[in-house]
């Protein structure tokens, strides 16, 4: 019996579940050690693989002799370039194909894969690596784009001056815009590599079956898409690859497809045994695909009343040894900010240069944190010099709902102004700006980001989810996106439960499996909740329709009069006429030849892609946010202590506010690492600090108190109004800190990470 009181206990706006801070559906397994990450899975008969990597940043490979390694007892396979199809492949994004699975006759960074072994235990595999003899002829190494672009350098790949990609975009009249300005400033900003440092090292299990099919178990963000790359690199049809996503122990953009998996395929095929491969932490630091470093030459004009009249930038970015997703990062990631402040005149030039450092690639924010550091720092400097308040200047220029940006983005919902105002309110901005302790300062910054990106995957944008309801009323959701640790399993379970009208514990959301799921583009570009969530909602509604159709027969009622509420099928207005969910699902299955109830939902966002100049609405919606912080600088040591952090993010609607806050808090910590702590030390292409001891990922002692507000702009296209939050929340943090440092001690640091040495030098130069 459903009574009126139950009906009235519904949440505001009629939601039972959306908007509730519900614990993660996978939390209990994670808290009790039950979750099986790939390294926790035992496979009978699996061999241990190890990869031989180049010790040179740049060298010719003259000869690889594996004969002694092959003879070592316990070694079952050794693979080199000769075991690969010998075709060049790439990330299927940039169009650039510049790498082999194993080096042919050239290595291009310290860590470049040369050979691999599989043996019956890890010690034998390690010993076998020492028995492989590689003759190298060292070539000059280039560790900075400026060096690599110089005349007369040895090309790292065939091509001119080591340039991997070069793009120029002009909108409006940037020169006229600069002439109109009352103040034009020009400066250079620099950002460095950042290592993902997810806690779970990349690992995989590979099996090669008797029908010549490869099966991969791995923590992979984009299982379906990866098959395209595997197919290209292995020169085999897509259907030969089956990818199963295992629980992902953190990704942040670093667990898109990996070369390690391709090496696993080669070893499994040659050894005819399952293979287990695991990166060591040192390999993760030295040879993963870190954030793209950029030197950003920025020019901006502002009128004396604070309007931005023009912006031009010229970015020289370090692609590292191979073009993975770095072309996407510089070209698609660095122009988003132009919409944040209603700019009309911009000129963006991006030059991406090969060097002999690790291939750089996708990392939370995807180019946006780099450019945002520069632009948000510059807005502070301009405001200051014009005697204006940086918060007011930002509000004055802020994007508004309904805007079509200079690049053609359509802002169907936009809570940027509200985010700025909320941060100002939370931190008591006006008062704290006046009354602050010695060497204390506050800073602000803003951000916008895509929620999916039509330009990023060339074939299509969208998502399809499948829902299967069995006779027992169990609901299985098969999505196309992956939980990378952010809580997508929970968000999708909540969306399905809400749309179906059933309890959360009926729902189980699958991890990715390319033999079962639709072609899912995976999790990147802040797309998963917005695009995948819509697909899950539509699939649930379709399943619900089918359930109600069966229930209508049973109740001799019209489908339109029925609804599902708290696991019961009810006749609206006649609460006494009802059926339990299981009664209906059992009837449906038993009377329809055993067929489960199926729902399939496809969502294609209303984006139209970009033209050849990158003009166009590339995302179905956009996320916004603002951050503020309070810091203290020790002028004797140059050390920056973060005292408080404030963040307000327009998430559309918080499906699960606790999870949204978690994304923001984790982002701020990564942003503090990026802005202050995480510094790679290189000498001649060798990373000198490849471990947590000397590469300082923030610890609990490095992060301040945080205060997060979620702004709900209720996006018209979002699932229940939701947008993304995981990437934009990382983007503004470094600039926020840099601006606070100026506010504290009067120096604007233009290079991150802001080490104490840089602060001291700037203070000294100021005197």
């Amino acid at each position: 019996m459903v009574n009126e009181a139950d009906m009235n206990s519904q949440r505001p706006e009629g939601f039972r579940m959306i908007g509730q801070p519900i614990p993660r559906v996978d939390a209990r397994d994670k808290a009790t050690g039950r979750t099986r990450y790939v390294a926790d899975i035992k496979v009978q008969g699996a061999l241990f693989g190890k990869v031989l990597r180049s010790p040179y940043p740049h060298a010719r490979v003259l000869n690889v002799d594996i004969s002694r390694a092959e003879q070592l007892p316990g070694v079952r396979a050794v693979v080199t370039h000769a075991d690969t199809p010998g075709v060049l492949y790439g990330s299927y994004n940039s169009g650039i194909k510049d790498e082999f699975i194993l080096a042919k006759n050239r290595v291009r960074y310290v860590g470049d894969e040369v050979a691999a072994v599989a043996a019956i235990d890890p010690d034998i595999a390690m010993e076998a690596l020492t028995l492989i003899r590689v003759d190298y002829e060292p070539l000059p190494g280039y560790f900075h784009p400026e060096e690599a672009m110089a005349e007369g350098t040895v090309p790292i790949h065939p091509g001119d001056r080591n340039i991997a990609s070069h793009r120029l975009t002009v909108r409006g009249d940037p020169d006229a815009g600069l002439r109109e300005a009352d103040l034009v400033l020009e400066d250079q900003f620099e950002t460095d590599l950042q290592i993902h440092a997810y806690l779970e090292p990349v690992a995989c299990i590979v099996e090669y079956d008797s029908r010549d099919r490869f099966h991969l178990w791995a923590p992979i963000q984009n299982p379906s898409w990866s098959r395209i790359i595997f197919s290209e690199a292995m020169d085999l049809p897509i259907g030969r690859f089956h990818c199963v996503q295992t629980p992902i122990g953190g990704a942040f953009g670093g667990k898109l497809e990996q070369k390690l998996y391709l090496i696993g395929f080669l070893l499994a095929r040659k050894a005819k045994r399952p293979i287990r491969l695991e990166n060591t932490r040192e390999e993760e630091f030295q040879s993963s695909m870190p954030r793209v470093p950029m030197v950003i030459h920025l020019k901006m004009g502002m009128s004396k009343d604070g309007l931005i009249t023009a912006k031009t930038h010229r970015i020289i970015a370090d692609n590292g040894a191979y073009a993975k997703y770095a072309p996407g990062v510089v070209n698609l990631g660095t122009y988003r900010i132009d919409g944040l402040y209603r700019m009309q005149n911009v000129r963006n030039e991006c030059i991406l240069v090969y060097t002999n450092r690790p291939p750089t690639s996708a990392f939370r924010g995807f180019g946006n944190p780099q450019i945002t550091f520069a632009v948000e720092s510059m807005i502070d400097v301009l405001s200051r010099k014009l005697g204006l308040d940086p918060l007011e200047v930002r509000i004055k220029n802020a994007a508004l709902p309904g805007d079509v940006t200079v690049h053609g983005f359509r802002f169907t919902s936009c809570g940027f102004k509200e985010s700025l105002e909320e941060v100002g309110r939370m931190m008591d901005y006006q008062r704290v700006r006046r009354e602050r302790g010695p060497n204390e300062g506050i800073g602000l910054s803003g951000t916008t980001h895509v929620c999916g990106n039509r330009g990023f995957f060339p074939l299509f944008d969208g998502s399809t989810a499948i829902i299967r309801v069995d006779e027992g009323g169990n609901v299985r959701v098969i999505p196309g996106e992956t939980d990378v640790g952010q809580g997508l399993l929970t968000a999708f379970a909540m969306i399905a439960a809400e749309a179906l009208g059933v309890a959360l514990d009926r729902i189980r959301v699958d991890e990715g499996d390319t033999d079962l799921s639709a072609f899912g583009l995976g999790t990147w570009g802040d797309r998963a909740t917005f695009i995948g969530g819509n697909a899950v909602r539509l699939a649930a509604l379709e399943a619900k329709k089918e359930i109600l159709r069966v229930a209508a027969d049973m109740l001799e009622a019209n489908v339109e009069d029925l609804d599902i509420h708290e696991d019961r099928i009810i006749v609206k207005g006649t609460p006494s006429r009802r059926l339990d969910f299981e009664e209906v699902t059992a009837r449906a299955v038993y009377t329809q030849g055993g067929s489960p109830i199926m729902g399939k939902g496809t969502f294609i966002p209303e984006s139209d892609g970009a033209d050849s100049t990158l003009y166009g609405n590339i995302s179905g919606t956009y996320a916004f946010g603002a951050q503020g912080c309070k810091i203290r600088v020790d002028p004797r040591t140059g050390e920056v202590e973060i005292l408080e952090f404030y963040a307000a993010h327009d998430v559309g609607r918080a499906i699960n506010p606790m999870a949204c806050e978690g994304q923001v808090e984790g982002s701020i910590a990564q942003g503090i690492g990026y802005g202050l702590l995480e510094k790679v030390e290189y000498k001649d292409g060798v990373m000198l600090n490849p471990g947590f001891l000397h590469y300082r990922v923030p610890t609990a002692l490095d992060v301040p108190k945080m205060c997060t507000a979620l702004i709900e702009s209720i996006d018209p296209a979002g699932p229940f109004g939701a947008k993304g939050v995981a990437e934009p929340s990382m983007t503004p943090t470094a600039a926020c800190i840099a601006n606070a440092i100026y506010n504290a001690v009067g120096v604007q640091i233009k290079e991150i990470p802001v080490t104490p040495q840089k602060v001291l030098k700037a203070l000294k130069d100021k005197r």
Partner: protein
Amino acid sequence: MKPVKQEIMVTINGELNRFFIRTNTFLLDLLRDELGLTGAKRGCNKGECGSCTVLLDGRPVRSCLFPAVMADGRQVVTIEGLEGPGGKLHPLQEAFIQQGAIQCGFCTPGMILTAKGLLDENPNPAEEEIRRAISGNICRCTGYVKIIDAIRTVARKKRGD
């Protein structure tokens, strides 16, 4: 050099075990490979990330660097041993779940055990003491905010506030 083998007796999660192991075996390998207790994670294998943390006689240790033979005659508790009879979770597990202190989960077992080590020794830690105690356990996802909150909640409950 041929590795030497040795017999050890270790109580793990309340149960006595006998092993005949190579003396160069680390506690983490013993737990994961011999017993299938994979809750302790190998995040760096250098004692720098904390994800392999287990309790040895009640104190947190980095099992990836701890020689298994030194656990002879001692008590080891892993995350699998924290769940009480009938599936009742330890208050720290419960608080981590309820308060959103878990994201990817890879640091979680080590983090919870480090927190247990702290609270067993100091049931009333100041926030700074909590931060210091878990500063050897790296979490890349949460920014530690909800982890610290969860530990504080349990501490408060222990005190009976």
